[in-house]
């Protein structure tokens, strides 16, 4: 190795050389293979549904992690950007007389435009004072957007929600040829589309946090005054991070609307969505990006099979009104879980796992 390289450059070179032998790389490939094979092996709608939602929420949570975990800014309005994306697609398709594939592009463009503008405005107003201002502003704006969507019936059809049909091959009713065990239909095509876009977006985010910009963001998170002293314009970097994370979330929102085919304030804009994202990011681990996969998978799988457990509880104690009432309130357990995780598991799965690996390595090294 050339002696005139800086330590950082040496580290990078080493990382590039061992790129394809890393356990991470193998895991990535395995995960990708599993995701590719899911529509082939499982014909049940539920599994495909959960998997695609996991992918979408992985993107949302990872983009949130860019803002919270890598830059250290607590945004409470991430669901707003997600909702903006979802509503962009829903409304564009709903109001188009004959929806076509390019409406998808228009919706994505609208979602990006809106979210970038909004993120810039929020950042400009709130970052000038204190970090906590940002949390308050985003919370206020997110709630406001939620109320707006509920009240503005002419545009958003309020709580009735907007249901729409995707055009062309993404239409649920579309059915194509059968290749081996895989029957191509609208659902499967949408699934693969979401898979491709998610992989691309996740790759972009990975690249982003490892780029010089990403490293500067970590510096801002860890010690802002020092980063300023080193000559970084921390204000610009923060804005960049917010705009980037928010627009990725908006794109994920577009995918969500595409998959579900129905958008309502309760399903994309309300506070529980934001809490969901927060819980996912914490369970996965802050500042790890891969944690997003774990967190999203954990929550979405629990969410899907929890009602079953509820039925079991009701079947066991059929007469008790209290049990029924308790079982109905699954958000309660969700909240308790939330508090417990924040207290006792603050690093999340990936963070804890990394710590363990590091400790083991340190022991082996000694």
């Amino acid at each position, binding site marked *: 190795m050339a002696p005139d390289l800086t330590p950082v450059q040496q580290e990078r070179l080493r990382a590039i050389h061992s790129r394809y032998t890393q356990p991470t790389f193998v895991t990535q490939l395995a995960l990708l293979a599993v995701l590719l094979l899911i529509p082939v092996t499982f014909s049940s709608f539920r599994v495909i549904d959960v998997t695609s939602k996991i992918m979408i929420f992985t993107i949302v949570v990872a983009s949130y992690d860019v803002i919270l975990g890598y830059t250290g800014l607590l945004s409470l309005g991430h669901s707003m950007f997600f909702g903006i994306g979802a509503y962009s697609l829903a409304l564009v398709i709903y109001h188009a007389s004959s929806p076509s594939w390019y409406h998808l592009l228009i919706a994505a463009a609208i979602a990006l435009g809106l979210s970038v503008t909004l993120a810039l405005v929020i950042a400009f107003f709130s970052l000038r004072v204190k970090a906590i201002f940002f*949390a*308050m502003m985003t*919370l206020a704006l997110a709630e406001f957007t939620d*109320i707006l969507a509920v009240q503005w019936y002419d545009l958003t059809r309020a709580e009735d929600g907007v249901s729409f049909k995707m055009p062309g091959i993404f239409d649920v009713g579309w059915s194509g040829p059968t290749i081996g065990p895989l029957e191509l239909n609208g659902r499967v095509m949408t699934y693969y589309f979401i898979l491709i876009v998610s992989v691309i977006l996740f790759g972009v985010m990975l690249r982003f946090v490892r780029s010089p910009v990403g490293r500067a963001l970590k510096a801002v998170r860890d010690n802002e005054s020092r980063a300023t002293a080193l000559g970084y314009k921390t204000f610009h970097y923060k804005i960049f991070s917010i705009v980037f994370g928010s627009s990725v979330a908006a794109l994920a929102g577009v995918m969500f609307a595409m998959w579900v085919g129905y958008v309502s304030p309760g399903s994309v804009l309300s506070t529980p969505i934001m*809490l969901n994202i927060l819980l996912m990011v*914490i369970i996965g681990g802050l500042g790890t990006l891969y944690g997003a996969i774990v967190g999203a998978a954990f929550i979405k799988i629990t969410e899907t099979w929890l009602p079953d457990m509820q039925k079991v509880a009701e079947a066991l104690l059929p007469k008790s009104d209290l049990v029924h009432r308790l079982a109905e309130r699954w958000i309660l357990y969700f*909240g308790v879980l*939330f508090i417990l995780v*924040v207290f006792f598991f603050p690093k999340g799965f990936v963070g804890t796992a990394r710590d363990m690996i590091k400790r083991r390595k340190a022991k082996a090294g000694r």
Partner: protein
Amino acid sequence: MAAQAGEQALRLSESELDLKKWVLWALSVGIWFVPLVWIDPITYLTLTIAGVTMGMLLFLTASGLTLIFGLMDVLNLAHGAFFAWGAYAGFSLLNWLNAKGWVELAGVGQSVGSLAMVLGVTLVVGALLGVILERIIIRRTYGNHLKQILITMGASLVMIEIIKILWGPNDEVILVPAAFRDSWDLFDVIVNKFRVVAILVGSLVFAAIQISLQKTRLGITVRAGVENRELVQILGYNIRRIFTGVFAAGAALAAMGGVMFAIFKEQIYPGMGEENLIFALIVVIIGGMGSVTGSFLGAIMVGLAFNYVAFLVPKLALGVNIMIMAVILLLRPKGLMGRE
């Protein structure tokens, strides 16, 4: 020579600052008469009373939030849950009192008595819940904003779900003491009786907070704690107990705001606290975080603006609060009365 020029420049900027301040004051006072261009004076007065009422109700909630933030540096997102708990506690008490004939069929004295009882009980309920939450949860998170926000969000969720378990998830109608139900007609200006009560209670609370913060020994300690926590501790005050007290007071104010708001709207539902929390947050941001006077001004500003705009351009009513917030933050990034 150079020094003189510098001094002159300084003086100039000072006078500029003065001018800016005056313009700000003139604007913030004058703007409330602008609606008179479109609204006839009698409607204007009715709307103004409605606006001030709304402002007072908002202030009750926002004051607790800003107090807790100012002293403890805690952004309490469970504030909305205290609000809802207050409303539901008041609801139960009013039902109980009604069985004794103190609400629906009450005379003036009984109405006042039952309202006072309701306010007292909700204050106690709020304070108790506040103490519990502070002791069990928030105490462990001092100094870590992220954790505080997450924990209080989680706590809020749990508290609201418990409301749903205890009282059911549906909207309920809250009873209004008979003496406060109708309205007076003063020269065609319709004055709802409960609005007068709300304005009275709000002003009383504002005065009480100001007096206890400015004049009492406890208030001085609290203010000193805001300025420099360590130094107060060094002087031998148990800052932890003061923290618990302030948190309980904030929660009690939220609970009282909740029951007042519920009686004002004559209905309650579990999500009411969360919806009100945004308004309280906006008010606190406008007023400057940690400033009670600021949030008082901010609350009245928001209340008035909401009512005028709701009358003139109903569609804009919800957006106007955000717009006020944006304008104030443009002019004063720290809010009306915010400090470093």
